[in-house]
């Protein structure tokens, strides 16, 4: 149990009479790269939304590092250590690159000061602000974004915006990082680069990563284990090669 980072037990949600996701049981080991795949509409993003508190599961529950997080608010869950990116990029578009990261650093205890520090510009204010900037630069550096730091997020290219979104999620200091189609819209070069970045941050920041992706080359090159969803239920589960070669999975994807 101790090395289990994320566990979901019979996680499910219904919207009215529609059972969008049912009985999802994930067991993600610490430091694992875990894939969540399935055809469009299978409920993958819905699972992410439940894990981050955007939706409240109607059945089942989930644990992060042994602690039950079901029912907690979105920002609480983030503080407990789950961060995510979005399928459709949702950066703070009119803020600079570094400011996007600074917002995400905002709630960590080491970067706190009180309103008086802010008003009077006490040494603590400067100390915290300087350390925050250093930390933000360190994270941006991992993604090769340091030189872009003063540009507005909306002026970045698509692939760069995707990288910034991961950087921003990382800045909240998560244990578990959820990536929703990180390689969507990327060219093969960018995808290859992204693969090495994901591996790199896993090692460097001691992360566990759960990712949704349609690019099977990306999934099989990166993930240790996968769960395949179809129509909201689990179709297959296991090591990547095994699950992706399951005849039912191939049928669900290709049809026939």
């Amino acid at each position: 149990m101790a090395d289990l980072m994320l566990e979901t037990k019979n996680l499910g949600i219904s919207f009215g009479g529609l059972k969008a996701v049912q009985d999802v049981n994930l067991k993600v080991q610490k430091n694992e790269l875990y894939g969540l795949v399935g055809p469009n509409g299978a409920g993958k993003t819905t699972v992410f939304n439940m894990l981050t508190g955007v939706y409240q599961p109607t059945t089942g529950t989930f644990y992060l590092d042994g602690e039950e997080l079901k029912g907690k608010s979105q920002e609480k869950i983030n503080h407990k250590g789950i961060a995510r990116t979005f399928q459709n990029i949702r950066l703070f578009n009119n803020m600079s690159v570094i400011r996007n990261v600074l917002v995400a650093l905002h709630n960590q205890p080491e970067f706190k000061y009180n309103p008086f520090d802010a008003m009077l510009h006490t040494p603590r204010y400067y100390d915290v602000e300087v350390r925050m900037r250093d930390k933000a630069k360190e994270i941006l550096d991992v993604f090769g974004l340091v030189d872009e730091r003063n540009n507005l997020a909306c002026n970045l290219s698509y692939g760069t915006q995707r990288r910034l979104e991961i950087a921003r999620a990382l800045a909240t200091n998560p244990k578990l990082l959820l990536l929703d189609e990180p390689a969507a819209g990327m060219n093969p070069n960018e995808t290859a680069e992204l693969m090495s970045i994901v591996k790199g941050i896993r090692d460097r920041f001691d992360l566990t990563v759960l990712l949704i992706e349609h690019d099977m080359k990306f999934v099989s090159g990166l993930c240790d284990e996968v769960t395949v969803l179809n129509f909201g239920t689990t179709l297959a589960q296991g090591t990547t090669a095994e699950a992706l070669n399951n005849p039912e999975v191939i049928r669900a994807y290709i049809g026939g």
Partner: protein
Amino acid sequence: MSTIMDGLSLGAIYALIALGYTMVYGIAKMLNFAHGDIIMVGAYAILTSLQLTGNPYLAVVVSIVVCTASGVIIERLAYKPLRGASPLAVLITAIGVSFFLQAVAQLIYGSKSQSISLPDFGKVAIGDVKINVSTILTLVIGGVIMTALTLFVKKTRTGRAMQAVSEDKGAALLMGVNVNRIIMVTFAIGSMLAAFASLFYLMQIPSITPTLGSMPGIKAFTAAVIGGIGSIPGAMLGGVLLGLIEKICLSIPKIAPYTTSIEFSLLIVILLVKPIGLLGKKIREKV
């Protein structure tokens, strides 16, 4: 010269109120029509504590505390339960809160106007024109507050979080920003600015009625829209512009009776020419 100074100081009052409208709109995406009545609350707070203690400086502090607290309480009780409700429901609620505050004030203080005597700071002569010290005070303190606010939003953690919430509430939540707290802080700051506005307003017009907040409230809202609602520099610009126009119109006898209609016509013209307001954020539709 003295018209310009008067205009600027009236403008500073409008700007302070407009900031409350624009910040709440930018962050909670709602029009808080009860904001004008916070000025009235602040005015009665000054009146009561002045009657009780006789100390004008203490009265100012009390009014700031009362305004800030009532802003936060109103948000808590009236608006927070409606988070995620349709904007129309929130708007109606805000108008309801406005009537509620006016009715409560009428119950406590009656509907007759009450006069208040704040310390008179006299006049100073600049060149050969005499200017009220209170006008200069309004300008200076108003300027300081607005500069401080701009720095606060630009340079501090909470300011950054506010900007993030105003850009994308959902994403901010998932980045660990406590959106409810940020909205509360926004209401607190807005109401605190309204307390200053009510003080300056009373220095110019020292009489209080339960509907005292309506007109400056609506004019400040106009100023916020002219400047581009949601934009902090826009609210300041709009406020100062409106204050100047009002005082200049009032100083020309032939135009004076039409002052208010000129101000609101300006709003219509600006909305026709530049619907997002002078400094409003452009919304580009991505295709």
